């Protein structure tokens, strides 16, 4: 087991380097000079501009931070490779650089935005697990019943609709129509309030964004749960349990569910990782100040230190969650032995 974990962690390294390297190359070919964009339409004062470039390590400086000039008196651009190693070096010390636009530490900005993403992901994953597993079980036990057909129809529709559209429909229904009908008594707040955290206290704010974030994965969870439970119910040991005269309830909850849940738990776990990567669309539709929205805004403004920093954090978090899911798989199902040539 330990060897397996170690091997997986070692496999992270090339993937991580690959992801960051691709991103690094991307930022160097993107049109638009990020430093010139700071001032917007106006022209930056050349000296200020040079100092900003020096501060971000875009041009070469000596050990005291003085700008180095070449023989023609021009500044020397830091080569891309050198800057990539600067980034990696900073990363090892927990320093993700400084935002071009806001002049703030990227680490600090991520620490500020990430809790919002984590909170909404936690609410969403609870919804996904409860509703998805519940609907899947009902649908499998009462096969071809009204409920089964309903679950099949709803899940088919959910996976075929854009999540942001669902978010807008929920806003329309719970934020606008119900408000008009009930005089505001039943309405749910439709967008997050960016700003200092105390303003963000009401739990009601979490409902609609979390439902939107959870919707599609809930549909998948229900489908996987249904097909797994149906498959398990056809196995011999369930027939034996039936022959012993156990009640249907005991068979399902004590025998079948334990095995049927394993792939579902894996899916939900992986999905939690995906949710922690930040949901750009959900966060945009609900004006939710999480890491997804922050990264998206940073890309449109070419604020590369924020983009690099966020993607770094996201990729590491997703990889760790996936590893935890894979390892927990072995605990849930003792038949699985990790490390024995199990990969494809």
């Amino acid at each position, binding site marked *: 087991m330990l060897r397996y974990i170690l091997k997986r962690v070692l496999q992270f390294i090339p993937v991580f380097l690959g992801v960051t390297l691709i991103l690094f190359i991307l930022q160097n070919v993107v049109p638009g000079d990020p430093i010139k964009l700071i001032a917007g339409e106006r022209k930056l004062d050349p000296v200020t501009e040079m100092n900003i470039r020096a501060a971000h390590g875009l041009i070469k400086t000596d050990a005291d931070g003085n700008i180095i000039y070449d023989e023609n008196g021009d500044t020397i651009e830091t080569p891309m490779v050198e800057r990539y190693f600067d980034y990696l070096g900073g990363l090892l010390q927990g320093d993700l650089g400084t935002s071009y636009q806001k002049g703030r530490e990227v680490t600090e900005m991520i620490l500020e935005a990430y809790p919002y993403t984590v909170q909404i992901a936690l609410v969403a994953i609870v919804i996904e697990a409860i509703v998805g597993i519940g609907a899947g079980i009902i649908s499998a036990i009462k096969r071809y019943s009204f409920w089964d057909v309903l679950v099949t129809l709803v899940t088919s529709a959910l996976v075929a609709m854009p999540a942001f559209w669902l978010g807008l429909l929920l806003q329309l229904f719970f934020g606008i129509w119900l408000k008009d009908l009930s005089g505001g008594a039943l309405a749910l707040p439709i967008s997050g309030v960016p700003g200092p955290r105390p303003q963000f206290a009401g739990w009601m704010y979490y409902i609609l964004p979390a439902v939107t974030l959870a919707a599609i994965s809930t549909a998948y969870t229900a489908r996987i749960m249904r*097909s797994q439970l149906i498959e398990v119910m056809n196995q011999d040991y369930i027939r034996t349990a039936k022959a012993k005269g156990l009640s249907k309830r005991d068979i399902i909850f004590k025998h079948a569910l334990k095995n049927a849940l394993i792939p579902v738990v894996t899916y939900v776990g992986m999905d939690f990782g995906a949710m922690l*990567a930040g949901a750009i669309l959900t966060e945009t539709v609900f004006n939710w100040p999480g890491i997804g929205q922050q990264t998206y805004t940073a890309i449109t403004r070419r604020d590369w230190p924020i983009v690099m920093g966020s993607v770094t954090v996201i990729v590491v978090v997703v990889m760790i969650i996936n590893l935890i899911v894979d390892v927990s798989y072995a605990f849930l199902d003792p038949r699985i032995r990790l490390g024995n040539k199990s990969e494809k």
Partner: protein
Amino acid sequence: MQYPLDLDTRADECAAAAEAPVNAEDSNPSRTLWGDAFKRLKKNRLAIFAIIWILFVVVVAATADLWVPQVLGAPNASDTATMVMNSRLAPSLQHPFGTDTLGRDVLSRVIYGARISLTVGIVATGISTIIGLVLGAIAAYYGGLWDTIIMRLADIFLAFPYTLFVIAMIAVIGNGIQNVFIAIGILGWPSIARVFRSAILSVKESDYVDAARSMGASDVRIIARHIFPNSVASIVVYATMNIGGAILTESALSFLGLGVIPPDPSWGTLIQEGQKFLQTEPWLMIMPGLAILTTVLAFTLLGDGLRDALDVKMKDA
């Protein structure tokens, strides 16, 4: 954002339909893979609905130039004289989906949007499929170092948060429809490569491949003539489902203002334009969403039907 549109839970119902006893009269003639598959597909009512809907959307979109401007009004042109008068009208007989803020007919824009969304879905899927097939074939057939490099590259692509990657890609190459093709197309290859790679691996060691090799067939010929036909079923199924995913991705990009450049209508752009009037004219945003929902659903159901008809196992997708 690109969802694996794999609706496997309905498989049992469809399989039951597919395994229904074949009539004595049609049990002997066409015994080709596609002939049989078509017969089974015809018995799947959901798949037939899906095909009819897709054909309907395609025909309406393709013939739009012939009748839409006359009946409903051009999708982009806005007559300044009547603009204010026609702005944001509720759905009526003359404007079944209402009009937008510039007095343009929304149904007309949804129909022209279908052109863009369908084209993106098909072209982007085509690009991913070609890249995926080539890389998957190299990885599986040559194995060793090639396999490691290509599959690690696939891991890297899959480790990226998909939405972020597409957005970053668009940031690099700029928006506009061609770039949407490219971005979605390039980022979609890893899943296809994985499917094709495992399909090849499962037939690579078969006797007929050995036989072909011993007769001196070249690698390309073996892959193209012997291995590809044996895995084409899974690729067709996967690509069909992928079209729906590409349409969803395009709508998300356009929604964020990174896709098609206005005034050209794509379904995502229409939702984004309609979003501003959520409170007063919700149909502006509901109608294009319904177009996405029904079309993506149709491609998913068709993919589902094809999977059951062609008897493809989708474990690696």
